[in-house]
C-alpha cells in the first residue's frame, strides 16, 4: 500500500464522521473497528521494515517516506518517515489504542464526543511519531494536547477541571517555548532555512552549527536546547515539572490514563531522541551531568513519593515518574546499551503501566474508591484478577523474565559505563519500587477478607481482552526481547555514535 504512513495516521480520524451517523451507543464499536483496522493496516509496516537501515541522521535511510510541499512559501513540507526511533513507538501507540478503546467500554456520557476526541488523539499521536518536518511535528503535537484536555476535563473524576487546567497550562508553557525554539532553529539553521528536521540533523552531523545571537547573554544553542528540553521535559515528566501528572491520572478516566501513561509520556523522551539531543550534541555534553542528576532525582523522588501515596492510582502515577527516570538515565549515558534500553523501556513502560492503570480501573469500577488501605483479602474473592495484578506488579518491579527487567538491565549496564555512582543510586529506586508495589499488593489482596468486598465481581471478559494481550507482550518480551530490540538496534547504535567519541 502506498502512503501507508498517512493511512495509519488518518484511519482513526476517518472514524469520526461515522460516529455521527450511528447511534451513540455504537460509538465504542466504531472506535474499536477503527483502531483494529489501523493495526491491521500497519502490519506490512513492521513486516517490510528494513532493520539494517540507520535512519536518525540520514534522510535517505528513513523508510516509507512521504513528502510533498505543503506551504511552499515557508518551505513547510508534509514529510513523514519511519526509522528505528519511531517504529517501536508506532507499534506501542497502535496496541495501546485498541486496549484503550476496550477500557472505554463503560463510557456512557456524550459517547460521540468522547470517541471523536479519542480518535483525534490517536491520529495526532501517530502523527507525532512519523512527522519529520518541524511544523508538521508541532502541529500534531498541539492537536494531541487539545483532545486530552477535554477528555480529562469532561469525562474525568471530581476534580477534573482543576486537573485539566493544570495539564493545559503546564503543556501550554512547554509548547510556547517549543514553538519559539522551532522558529529559532528554522531561522538560524545551518545553511539555508529549513523545517526539515532530518536535513537539519544531517547538516549538524556535517559540522554545521546554529549561528544565532546571544539571548539574555546566553549562547543561542543553549537557550534553544533548554527551551526544547523544558517543552519535552514537561511531557516526560521530569522533576520539578511533574505535578500535573498525578492529578491528571487521578482524575482521568481509566482509558485516558492508559493512553497518558502508555503513549503520551513517551512523546517527551521521543522528542529528546529525535530533536533535542542529536541536534545539539555539544550542548548535550554540557548538559549531560545535569541530566543524569535529573534522572536519578526522578527515579528516587518518584519512588519515594509513590511510597507515601494512599490512592492506588496516584501511586501508579508516581511509579511512572520513577520509571521514566530510567529512560532519561539511558539517554544521558548515550551508550548503545543505554539508548537501546531507553527505547525498550519506553515501550515496556507503555505496556506495563497501561496494565497497571487498567487493573486499577477494574477495581475502581467495582468499589468506587482507590484507597489502598480500604480493601483487604480480595485475592480469595477474585483470584484471576489477583493473579493478573501480581504479574503486572512483578513486571513493574522489574522481575527478570518479564520485559521491564530487560530494559532496566540494559539501561543500567549502559549508564554504568559512564556514571557508576548515579547508576547504583538508581538501583535504590528499584528497591523502593518493590516496596510500594508489594505494600499495595499486600494491603489490597492479602490479609483477612474485607466484609464489604466479599462479593466483589471477578474481572470480566472485556477487561480481560484489554489486559491479557499486554500480559502476553510483557512475558514474551521478557524472554525474547531481541524480537523488538532488532527493530531499533541499528538506528540507536548509530544514534549513540553521535555522542560517544
Amino acid at each position, binding site marked *: 500500500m502506498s502512503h501507508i504512513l498517512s493511512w495509519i495516521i488518518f484511519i482513526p480520524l476517518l472514524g469520526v464522521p461515522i460516529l455521527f451517523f450511528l447511534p451513540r451507543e455504537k460509538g465504542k464499536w466504531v472506535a474499536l473497528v477503527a483502531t483494529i483496522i489501523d493495526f491491521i493496516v500497519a502490519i506490512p509496516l513492521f513486516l517490510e521494515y528494513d532493520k539494517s537501515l540507520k535512519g536518525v541522521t540520514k534522510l535517505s535511510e528513513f523508510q516509507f517516506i512521504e513528502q510533498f510541499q505543503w506551504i511552499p512559501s515557508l518551505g513547510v513540507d508534509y514529510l513523514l518517515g519511519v526509522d528505528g526511533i519511531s517504529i517501536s513507538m508506532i507499534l506501542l501507540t497502535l496496541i495501546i489504542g485498541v486496549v484503550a478503546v476496550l477500557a472505554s467500554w463503560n463510557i456512557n456520557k456524550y459517547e460521540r464526543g468522547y470517541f471523536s476526541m479519542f480518535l483525534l488523539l490517536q491520529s495526532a499521536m501517530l502523527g507525532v511519531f512519523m512527522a519529520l518536518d518541524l511544523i508538521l511535528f508541532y502541529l500534531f503535537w498541539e492537536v494531541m494536547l487539545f483532545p486530552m484536555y477535554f477528555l480529562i476535563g469532561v469525562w474525568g473524576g471530581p476534580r477534573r477541571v482543576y486537573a485539566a487546567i493544570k495539564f493545559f497550562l503546564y503543556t501550554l508553557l512547554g509548547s510556547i517555548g517549543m514553538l519559539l525554539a522551532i522558529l529559532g532553529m528554522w531561522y538560524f539553521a545551518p545553511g539555508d532555512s529549513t523545517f526539515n528536521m532530518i536535513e537539519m540533523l544531517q547538516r549538524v552531523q556535517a559540522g554545521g552549527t546554529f549561528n544565532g545571537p546571544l539571548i539574555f547573554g546566553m549562547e543561542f544553542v543553549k537557550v534553544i536546547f533548554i527551551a526544547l528540553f523544558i517543552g519535552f521535559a514537561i511531557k516526560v515528566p521530569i522533576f*520539578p515539572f511533574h505535578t500535573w501528572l498525578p492529578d491528571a491520572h487521578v482524575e482521568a478516566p481509566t482509558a485516558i490514563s492508559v493512553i497518558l501513561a502508555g503513549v503520551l509520556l513517551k512523546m517527551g523522551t521521543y522528542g529528546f531522541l529525535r530533536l533535542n539531543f542529536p541536534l545539539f550534541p555539544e550542548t548535550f555534553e554540557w548538559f549531560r551531568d545535569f541530566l543524569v542528576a535529573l534522572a536519578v532525582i526522578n527515579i528516587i523522588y518518584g519512588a519515594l513519593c509513590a511510597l507515601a501515596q494512599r490512592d492506588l492510582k496516584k501511586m501508579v502515577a508516581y511509579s511512572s515518574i520513577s520509571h521514566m527516570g530510567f529512560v532519561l538515565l539511558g539517554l544521558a549515558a548515550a551508550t*548503545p546499551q543505554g539508548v537501546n534500553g531507553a527505547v525498550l523501556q519506553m515501550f515496556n513502560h507503555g505496556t506495563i503501566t497501561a496494565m497497571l492503570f487498567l487493573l486499577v480501573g477494574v477495581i475502581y469500577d467495582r468499589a468506587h474508591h482507590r484507597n489502598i488501605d480500604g480493601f483487604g483479602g480480595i485475592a480469595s474473592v477474585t483470584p484471576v484478577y489477583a493473579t493478573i495484578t501480581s504479574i503486572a506488579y512483578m513486571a513493574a518491579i522489574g522481575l527478570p523474565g518479564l520485559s521491564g527487567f530487560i530494559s532496566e538491565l540494559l539501561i543500567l549496564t549502559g549508564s554504568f559505563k559512564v556514571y557508576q555512582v548515579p547508576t547504583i543510586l538508581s538501583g535504590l529506586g528499584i528497591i523502593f519500587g*518493590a516496596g510500594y508495589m508489594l*505494600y499495595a499488593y499486600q494491603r489490597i489482596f492479602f490479609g483477612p477478607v474485607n466484609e464489604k468486598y466479599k462479593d466483589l465481581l471477578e474481572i470480566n471478559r472485556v477487561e480481560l481482552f484489554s489486559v491479557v494481550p499486554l500480559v502476553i507482550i510483557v512475558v514474551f518480551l521478557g524472554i525474547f526481547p*531481541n524480537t523488538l530490540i532488532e527493530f531499533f538496534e541499528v538506528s540507536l547504535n548509530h544514534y549513540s555514535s553521535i555522542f560517544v567519541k
Partner: protein
Amino acid sequence: MSFIQTAIPFVPILPLIGALILGFFGKRIQASVGEFKTGILGCLTPGLAAVISFASFFVLITLEPEQRVFTIHLTDWISVAELDVQWAFRYDPLSALMLMIVTGIGTLIHIYSMGYMHDDQSYWRFFSYINLFLAAMLLLVLGDNLVIMFLGWEGVGLCSYLLIGFWFSDSDNAQAGKKAFLFNRVGDLGFITGIFLLYLFSSQHYDIVTLSFGELDQRALFLSKSSLWDYPLLEIAALCFFIGAMGKSAQIPLYVWLPDAMAGPTPVSALIHAATMVTAGVYMIGRMYFLFALAPNVLMFVSWIAALTCFFSATIGMAQFDIKKVLAYSTVSQLGYMFLAMGVGAFSAGIFHLLTHAAFKAALFMGSGSVIVALHHKQDMREMGGLLKKMPVTGWSMIAATLAIMGFPLTSGFFSKDEILWKAYMQGSPALWLIGFTAAGITSFYMWRLIFMTFFGESRCDKHTWDHVKEQPKRTVVPIAILAFLALVLGFLNIPHFLGGHSGFTDYLSPVVQDLEIAPSKLIETSSLIDTHVSSTMTDESLSVEEDHTQLEWTLMILSVLWTIFTGLIAFFFYYLSPKTRQIIMSFIWAKKLFQLLSDKYYIDELYEIVIITPIKAIFQICSLHDQKVIDGIVNFAGFFGKWIAKISAVFDNQIVDGCVNGTGWLSQFSGQGFSRLQSGKIQSLVGASLLVGIGFIVLLVFYFI
C-alpha cells in the same frame, strides 16, 4: 547431540510446564479428579526432572574429568552492541550435583507435601508455586551466565515470597513474605552491581561480552589487574556478589527475613528456606570461585561475617520455643559454616556441607512439620513432649538428623563440618576456628534441647490433642526417613586423607571448583602469589604439608567431637534428667536477662526499625508533602496570580482603556475598535495566565537549580 545436551534443558522446563498447567487449570483439575491426583500431577514433573538429573550424572561420571563441562546454547536473549547474553545452560560436576540436590530433595518434598497440604483449599496453587520454584532454582543452578543466574535468583525470591505468604489471609504471613522479598532486593542490588562491574571492565577490553562463567574464568586474571576508584576491580565485584549472597543466604546483616519466613507451610521451609534457595549464595561463590580466589580481602571478610553469623544465630537458636524458629536460626548458623568454608578458600568443603546440610536440615524441617500437623498446627515446643512413642518414624529420623547436624562421628555432618573447622584453622585463623568450634557445641545443645523437649519426657499438650496424635501417613514419613538415612551416610562421599579416605567429593568437583591452597591472608601479604593462586592439581609438596598436620587434625577433630557430645549432655541434663536445675538457674536475674536478650534476637529487628525504616518513612512523607505544598504551591500560586492579573487588566480595559477610547477620538483612530476588542476579554486572560505560569516556572527553576 549427546544425551546430556538433549536432556538437560528439560530439567528446568518440566517443572515450569507443571507450574503453568497447575496455575491455569489447577482449580478445575482439582475439582474434577480430586486432591490426590492433583498432587500426583504436581509431583510428576519434578520427579521426571530428578530422573533426568540422576541419569545425566551417571553419564557425566563415565566421561574423563576434563570433558565434564557442557554448555548448551538455546537461543539469543539480550544482545545490544558488544553485550550478547544467551539463553544457555552449563552442565558440569558442580551443577550436576546441585541438580541432584534440588530435584532429588525437591521430589521428596513434593511427595511429602501431598500429605502435609492435605485438605487445603488451594492445594493446586501450592503445587503450582512450588513447581515454579523448582524451575527458577534449576535455572539459577544451570544458568551459563550471570544474567540467567540472576533470573533464577530473583525467580526463587518471587516464589519464596508467594509461598511464605501462601496462607495470605493472615496478615503476618503476607508481611513476612514482603520482608523476605525486600531484604533480598537489597542483596540483589549488590549482585547486579557486581554484574555491571564485570561487564564494564570486560567491555573495555574485549569486543564481545557474554557474561558466561567460562568467559569470566578466562578473563578473571586479566580483569584482576583493573581497578576502580583505586581498589582492585575484582575485590569490589566480589564484595558486590557477596552482598547478594548475604541477602539470599541470610548472613549478617541481612539475615532477619529468614526466621520470619517460617510463616510459610513447612514443606516450603524445608525445601526453600533450608535445603535449596538459601544455599544459592554458597553455590554462587562456588560457581565463581575463580573470581573470589583473586579477591583475598573479600574472602577474609566473608569468613568473618560467616563466623559471626554462625555464632550469633546459634545463640539465638538456644532461646526459641517455636520448633521451626529453632531450625530457622540453625539454618542461618549452618549457612554461616558454609560461608566460613568459602571464605577460607575451602570451596569444596563449603559445597560438601551444602549437600549434607540439605539432607539433614530438610529431614529436620519435614520432621518438625510432621509433628506440627500431628499436634493440629501447634509449633510451641513447650506444648510438646513424649512424642517419640506415638511418632517413632518421625522421632528416630529427627534424632538421626540431629546426630548428623551435631557432627557425631561418621555421620555426614561430622565429615563436612570437621573439614570446615580444619580449614578454618589452617587457612583462616585459630580465632575463626574457635568461633566455629564454639558454635558447633551450641548447635548440639539447641538441637538436643529440641529433641528432648519434643520427643521425650512427659507430654505437655492437652489431653484431647494427645489422644489424637498419631504417626503421619507413609507419603509423609517415608521421605523423612530417606533423608535421615542420607544424613547419616552421605559423609562417606568425602572421607579426608588423614582418615584414610580419598576426598572423593573434592576430586569430583576439582575440574570446576578448586580449593585455595594458601590462606587468603597470605595471599594479601604476598601479592606476587596472585598469579599462582590456584594450582591445577594437588602437588606432592602440598600433600606432604598435610602429612605434617595429621596429628593436629586428629586433635581438633577429637576436641570437637568431645565438645559437641558434652553440650549435648548438658541439654540432656537440663531438659530431660533434671528440669528442676534448669528452673533454678533460670530464676537468677542474669539468666533471665540473658535468655530475654537471646529470645528477642538481640533486638536486631527493632534496630532496623529505628535506623532504616523510620527514616525512610519520614523521607517519603517529606517528598510527598514537598510535592503537594511546595511545587504545587508555586503552580497554584502562579495560576491564581495569573487569574487575578487578568481580572485587573480586564477592569483596566473596561474602565480606563475603553474610557479613553470612548473619550478621546485620537486614541480610537490610532488603535481601532477591533484591536481594542482583541485586547480585552478572554484571550488576554489566557495569555496573561500562561505568561504568569511561565514566570512561575522560572521561579521554580531558580528555586531549584541555581
